[in-house]
Every structure is written in structure tokens, then in C-alpha cells.
């Protein structure tokens, strides 16, 4: 079992934790035995009370009250970055210009909404997605609130091009063979 360190910056992330109001220790790095295993068990939903107790024992301040149940209080869960999705579209690129591209959009949040059309800056895409920007490329445009590990919330727009495997020569040859067969059947009198 490898142990990890709880750094000062990690602790700052727990801004609502009552333990934060306690007097901070001098050391900026606090080795806590078993913390990594504990975090793994929390993540997988299998945290047991003895895991919690072991971590609690290692902390430099006492727990507010003894925890004997397997239920983990919210304040003890490690904070993870969070994204609250408000709106999402699936887009299809119809034309690419010098610094912008045009696309049609299908509303994934409310699929009954009619189709829409958008012109977006190429700068909105990541560097790797720009290489895939071509008519026919499918992308997802998501708008939502991003909450960082420090608890800060910001409104964001994310555009990501869908990544699919490349065409293989075998697939295209297979399609050609099927096309010849299909045309032969359709043209033949019954």
C-alpha cells in the first residue's frame, strides 16, 4: 500500500470542511498512512468504517464526532471537478472558412427542438480538433457550469469533435464489392 501526502493546496480545496477552521499545522506536507486506499474505496463506493477510522486517526485534529457507520459524510468526500450541463447539441460541420466554420445543430437537451445553424470561431476548438475540422465532422457543443476542485464555478462552452476510427482499405473494398452485387441484383429482371 503506497501512501500519499496531503498538501496544503489539497487542504485548501476543502473550503467547507469544519476541520479547516482548526489551527493549521506548521508542516505543509502531512503524510497520512492509508489515504490513497481510502480515497480509492470512497471512489468505488466501498468505503468501510475502519478505513475512515484509520484516516481519522492520522489526522492532526480530532473528528467532530465518532463515525461508525459505513455512510461517509459529505464533508469527508474528496472534492472532484464537476460539470453541470445546461445545454448540449450535436453539430455537423457543413463548411470551413479561414477562421470560422458553419454547422447545423441538433438539440440533444430537447430533441423536439427544430434544427439550428451556427457559425463558430475555429479558435473555439482544441489544437488537435482543428486537424479534424472538415465538412462532415461531427462535434458536441456543451454549455454548462464548471466547478473546479477549489469550488470556483464558471460558465463554460466546450466544443469537442467526435473521434471515430479511420477508414481501412478492407472496409472500402468490401463496400465496393457490396455495391457491385447490389447493382447487379437491382438491375436483373425477376
Amino acid at each position, binding site marked *: 500500500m503506497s501512501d500519499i501526502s496531503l498538501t496544503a493546496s489539497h487542504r485548501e480545496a476543502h473550503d467547507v470542511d469544519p476541520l479547516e477552521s482548526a489551527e493549521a499545522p506548521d508542516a505543509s506536507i502531512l503524510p497520512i498512512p492509508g489515504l490513497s486506499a481510502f480515497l480509492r474505496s470512497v471512489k468505488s463506493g466501498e468505503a468501510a468504517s475502519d478505513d475512515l477510522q484509520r484516516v481519522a486517526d492520522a489526522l492532526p485534529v480530532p473528528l467532530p464526532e465518532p463515525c461508525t457507520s459505513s455512510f461517509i459524510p459529505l464533508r469527508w468526500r474528496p472534492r472532484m471537478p464537476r460539470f453541470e450541463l*445546461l*445545454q448540449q447539441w*450535436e453539430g*455537423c460541420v*457543413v*463548411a470551413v472558412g479561414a477562421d*470560422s466554420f*458553419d454547422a*447545423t445543430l*441538433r*438539440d440533444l437537451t430537447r430533441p*423536439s*427542438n*427544430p*434544427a*439550428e*445553424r*451556427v*457559425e*463558430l*470561431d475555429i479558435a*473555439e476548438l482544441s489544437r488537435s480538433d482543428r486537424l*479534424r475540422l*472538415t*465538412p*462532415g*465532422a*461531427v462535434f458536441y457543443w456543451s*454549455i454548462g*457550469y464548471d466547478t473546479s476542485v477549489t469550488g470556483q464555478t464558471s*460558465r*463554460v*462552452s466546450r466544443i469537442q469533435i467526435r*473521434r*471515430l*476510427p*479511420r*477508414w*481501412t*482499405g478492407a*472496409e*472500402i473494398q*468490401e*463496400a*465496393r464489392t*457490396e*455495391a*457491385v452485387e*447490389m*447493382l447487379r*441484383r*437491382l*438491375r*436483373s*429482371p*425477376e
Partner: protein
Amino acid sequence: MTYSSPPAADEFELSLFGPGKGECIVLHLGDGQWIVVDSCRNPATHVPVASEYLDALGVDIARDVRQFIITHWHDDHIGGAHEFFERATGAEFVCSGALGNEEFVTLLRCGRRSLFTNTSSGVDEFRYILESLDERPGSRRIAGRGPTLARSDQRLSQLTHTSGSTSEEWALSPANATLTLAVRAFGDLVPDAGEYRNRLPTQTANELSVVLWVRVGAVTALLGGDLEQSNDPARGWTAIVSSSRRPQGRASVFKVPHHGSRDADCPDVWNALLEPSTTSLLTPFGCGRLPLPTPSDVSRLKARSSSLICTAPPGGTASIRRTRAVDRTIRETARSFRTIEGGTGQIRIRAKHGETSANLRVELFAGAVLL
């Protein structure tokens, strides 16, 4: 006469639907014989508009739709086409002669491997239709199971109705010169090994589009599809105007090509193929950089038509209201943002078989506007 009253046996009907992205024409030739040209979905119900309308009229789609024609494979003309064709089991399937080549069908077969489930395209719709044809037993079709490949100056049907009137239907395009170019264009769209998998594009020229000439009794309609003008006189509208093998006469109803865009404008069409008092119909298109028709397109078309009617107001539809945070982010992120589709407007024209173009009865439904 109400919306859901079907036309009489001796009555011609042309209904044009267009919600902002998409176009569909429903034709009644007479005696309960229907033709459907292109397909789009009602944005509110996601049902193909032809199915909804024919159901409202009480038409038996499996029995009474004799032809289903797809003028070209662009997304705005083929939405829900496969769903409609599944119901039109007795219909002959007609498409552009440019789509009968091996390169195009290879592209469709690649579509089967594109791994997309949500972002379907014209490729998927066409592939499903061909797969349906492949499984369907021979119907009242010419040799083979189809599709029927339309090309310029080709008569697609000729009927004599119980009223004594006759009707005929011709394809005026694509021109032969276009068919050769199409093979190369589709070859370029077939993905190469090593290329990233994307939604397969439907980016071929509008000159592959089928243009239809439909005469019922004394009334003729020219249905322009999305055919554009070309610098090559052997292609585009000039090829149609200069053809000596096309049916003679002039049409009094014109479905304006390509949403009224200047690219599809050919002044000779108005002089050679249309009556001086033409009723022009069009659908808007919200997917392009500029919504079509533009104000200058409307001015040009109004000057040439006795009346110009659009299935929805040009210029796009009202934006969808979302939360303040989302609306603010859209404004901060997007250079432009608009709703493409609105209500499914309908223009309906009816005329008895013996009547002339002076007796057309025009009705507008669900947001269609006289411009």
C-alpha cells in the same frame, strides 16, 4: 372545401411543403393516382410531411402512390424518404440518373459502416431505400427492381383518366453531360483508407437534380428541383431550354429551383418554358450562410411572376428561448446562430381536368405567404 377534403377524381392537385429545411411536393394526377416528389419531415412531429398529409386526406399510401421521385440526394430533399417509401409499397422509385453508378452505391455502402446513429444524412436515407428495393419483390416496375434512373427528355408516365383528360410526366434533367461528371464527383466522395470517419457528405452539385414537367389536362407545372445554371450550355437550365426533344408548351405553375437563389436563375426559362402569367412557388432554405430566398431574389422573382408564394416567410424563424445563461453563452461564442426550421407551410393548388390555368384555386396553410 376543408384541408382534409381529398381532390375529386377529375381534379389535379399540387401541394408544396417546406418547413425551412426541406421540400416535398405531393401531386394528384386524377382517379386517386398520386406522385410524391422529394421528402422532408414535419419538425414538430418528425413524421414525413407526405405521410401526414396523405393520411389526413384518407389516401391509401401503399395502393395509391404510383411514384416516389427523389430529385437529388441533398439532405433538404430526402429527410424521412425511407420512412415514406416503406409505406409506399406499390410505388415506383425514381431518382436522378446520376445516382445509378457504382461509385455512388459504394458511397452508400460506406455509409453502413460510418458508425453514426444520430447524425443521419442523405447517404443513409438513400441506402435504406436501395436496401428496401433490394428486398422488395418486383412490382409494377420496368425490368428489375429499380430504381428508375431519370435523365433529360425522358417520359416517365402517360395516363388517360376517366374524365377523358390525359396526363404526362417528363424528366427534363439531368443532362447527359452531367451524368459523366457525376461518376467522378462520387468517386471523390468515397473515403480513402486512413481518412478519419465522418458523417458522409452530400456535397455534389445541384446540377444532378431532376427537373420535372407534369401536364394534367390543360394545366402544366414545371418543378425545378434544385437545378442550377451552368457555364456549360450542355448542362444546367440552358441544356433544358435548348433541347428539341423536351415536351413543347408552357407551364403556368413553376416550383422555383433552389429556393430562388441567383445561381439557379436562367432568364431564358421564363421566356421559353413558362406562361407570362406564371404562379411561382418556392420553399425557404435556412441552412446556408445566407437564408434563401434573399430580398433581392424575392424582388427578381416577383417581377417575373403573376404571383410568388413561399411556404414560410423568408429570412428564418424565431429563435428558441433557452435559459439566460445558455442564451448569453451562445451570444458570446457564436458569430451567428439561428433556427432553421419553422412550421410546415403548405401551398395547395387544385384545378379540374377541363379547367385552364386561369381557374387555379390556390390555398395557403400553416404559415405559407404570398410575397
